[in-house]
């Protein structure tokens, strides 16, 4: 690994996406991929530019970003807290885990009628859906992280007079952290994913709306554009999660 230089490490991960892009462009030029159905990268880029020009793209992305973050914060905190309590207390675990595992399995699309009933058709319902989606990965991984903290270290902490908050922050949380970060990384993805469902509820903005609208009217370039945007956001979320992993799990290297 030492032989791979720092800059190479930055570049190599982009090799696969870039190669795919090139193949796709070349096949499009050669007419192997019919343009009407899967537009060439250059066309997608064009579509992106023109949406950027009109300011539409910016608007879609920024409204979605807002919904995403609001939902992420709410759902993340709830998921974390439940994971925490169920991980620590066997009673809470017994009482709530089954219910959460059941809730987790309900598709958002099927929930929409109920969500509209409960929260109407405005922002609340969209943020609710994102929060719901984000909650579960955070929950499961926090739960697992806490359950798998070395029992011996917890015992040590207790024997040294730690309890409650101090036990949590000195032993349990750091021990569970790497798993919690996996949950957060996962949920940063889910955050964007859920938006596409949330934004089928009465709206006229957001990147989920943009994608579904394009699907409705078969604007393949915009569909592909939004897929690309999603992918880039995925990478971005992942980089953020990795940054924190690196920073917080320093001792583990």
């Amino acid at each position, binding site marked *: 690994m030492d032989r791979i230089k720092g800059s190479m490490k930055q570049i190599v991960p982009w090799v696969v996406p870039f190669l795919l892009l090139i193949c796709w462009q070349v096949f499009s030029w050669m007419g192997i991929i019919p343009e009407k159905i899967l537009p060439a990268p250059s066309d997608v880029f064009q579509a992106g530019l023109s949406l950027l020009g009109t300011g539409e793209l910016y608007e879609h992305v920024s409204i979605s970003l807002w919904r995403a973050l609001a939902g992420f914060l709410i759902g993340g905190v709830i998921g974390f807290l439940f994971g925490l309590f169920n991980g620590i207390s066997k009673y809470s675990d017994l009482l709530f885990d089954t219910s959460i595992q059941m809730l987790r399995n309900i598709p958002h699309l099927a929930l929409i009628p109920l969500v509209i009933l409960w929260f109407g058709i405005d922002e609340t319902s969209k943020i609710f859906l994102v929060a719901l989606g984000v909650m579960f990965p955070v929950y499961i991984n926090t739960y697992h992280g806490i359950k798998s903290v070395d029992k*011996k*270290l917890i*015992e*040590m*902490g*207790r*024997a*040294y*007079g*730690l309890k409650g908050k*101090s036990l949590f922050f*000195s*032993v349990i949380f*750091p*021990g569970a*952290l790497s798993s919690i970060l996996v949950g957060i990384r996962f949920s940063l993805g889910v955050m964007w994913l859920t938006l596409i469902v949330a934004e089928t509820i009465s709206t006229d903005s957001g990147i989920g709306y943009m994608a579904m609208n394009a699907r409705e009217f078969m604007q393949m370039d915009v569909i592909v554009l939004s897929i690309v945007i999603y992918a880039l956001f995925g990478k971005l979320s992942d980089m953020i999660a990795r940054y924190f992993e690196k920073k917080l*799990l320093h*001792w*583990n290297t």
Partner: protein
Amino acid sequence: MNFHTEEPIHVQLAGVEKWYNELNVLKGMDLQAERGEFIAVVGKSGCGKSTLLRLVAGLEQSSSGFIYMDQKPLKSLNKHARIMFQDGRLLPWKRVIDNIRIGLPGEWKGKATEALENVGLGDKKKEWPNNLSGGQRQRVALARALVHDPELLLLDEPLGALDAFTRMEMQGLIESLWQQKKFTSILVTHDVEEAVALADRVILIESGMIMMNQEIPLARPRQRTQPAFSMYLEMIMDRIMNRMPKKNYIVEQNYQMS
């Protein structure tokens, strides 16, 4: 809130048994540690020394019998005790100094640094535990236990990974701290010499029972070269090794006050 009181604690075990499934590790233990007494526990590997300490620390519940701290039965975690675990148990995500300060109330910095210097690791303050050598890790764990000034100190083979030289230094450290603070202490060790050097009383566990309960009435500081020291050492060793005693141990009385 420093919980060290002037009075060290009195510990009593009454008929303590411990079963792990089918395995009867401790078969009815009766033992008293007077206030401020230094007891050493020796015995073969797997005889139940760590189990005994864990019971006294309240980390495990006895299958039957009772443990009393100052006459009050121990129900759960023993708040008067600090235990140094046989396997160290440093938190890998905390630097050495932060490992030592765990659970220390109030002004910890000076104390923790001093404890670390006492065990000869002042320069490893900011190191991660994973980067320490085996003996260094053990000394950090020792420092962590000592820094708390507990009423009852439980040490589970605290010096097992140390070379002769460092070991002697650490024995000196433990002894001088004990003389200073007069906490009650139970030391598990496999080094009988260490037991004789440090303890007021040496206890030998065999087949889950206390097979020997030997006062070591030597004055401190103890010279390992003095004949009485060797005699106690040999006597206990003989018992452990199941050797026939070579001399009559009644003579021990002669050395009592030496």
